[in-house]
């Protein structure tokens, strides 16, 4: 593998990792938000 191929591979990997970090990070944020709303609803006192 020459240097160009190695760099290309690293950049493609970085792009895929960044995509998954953003998407899974957002999913985690949604999960936390959903749990907080459910807790509020269950407590009957939304404050």
């Amino acid at each position, binding site marked *: 593998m020459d240097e160009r191929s190695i760099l*290309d591979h690293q950049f493609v990997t970085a*792009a895929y990792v960044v995509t998954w970090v*953003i998407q899974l990070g*957002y999913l985690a944020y949604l999960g936390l938000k*959903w749990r907080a*709303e459910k807790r509020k609803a269950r407590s009957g006192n939304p404050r």
Partner: protein
Amino acid sequence: MKKLAVGFYAMIVVALMIWGFYQAMYVAPDDAMQGYISHIIYYHVPAASLSFLFFAVSLIGSIGYLSFRRSNPERAQAYDAWALAGAEVGVVYCTVCLTTGPLWGRRAWGIWWTWDARLTTTLVLWLIYVSYLLLRRFAAGPQVQTLAAVLGIFGAVDVPIVYMSNRWWRTQHPAPVFGGNGDSGMAPSMKHVLLWNMLSWLAWGILILGLRYRTEREHQKNAHQEAMEALEAKI
């Protein structure tokens, strides 16, 4: 039953995501001109295209909210939840587009960023919807939803401008692959990989859009309950 259906759908989404990843990394051939770096397009192009779709959902939600806010407040709230969910998921996809694009550009062009029409209009689109989300997060009062709906409608005007930017102006960004001039197009071996990834990211997007919508509806219910309790306490 509903939980089971959502779980089943989530399993299909995961299977599609794994299949799309496998196709993009191991099946798709390298582009003759660009080499291995071309594999970024299997994540970059679906992110860009699908962000348009989610901003369209936000547009429909915003129009629906403004149309029904007086005649049918309950329906208007549902539209508002779609508007917010569409904007948020659209921003997530647009963020992916704006981060994978420069990674590709650095290798293909030798630069991370250039102020050409496609890149600039995409950045403006992202900024408009980030401001929409900030408005919803930090502003208070009865007019917030109306103001956000107006901003959502104006923000959507940028979507066709982004789409047409590399047709109207000469840009450094590559010419359109689909729907371009006679020379546009893609090798079938690459096209089917792109379509699989389009499908898998669409399925993923629908899943998180639905989750965001349900969360917002729950939030609206809690806020309504809170307002009713405050009123009763005063009486």
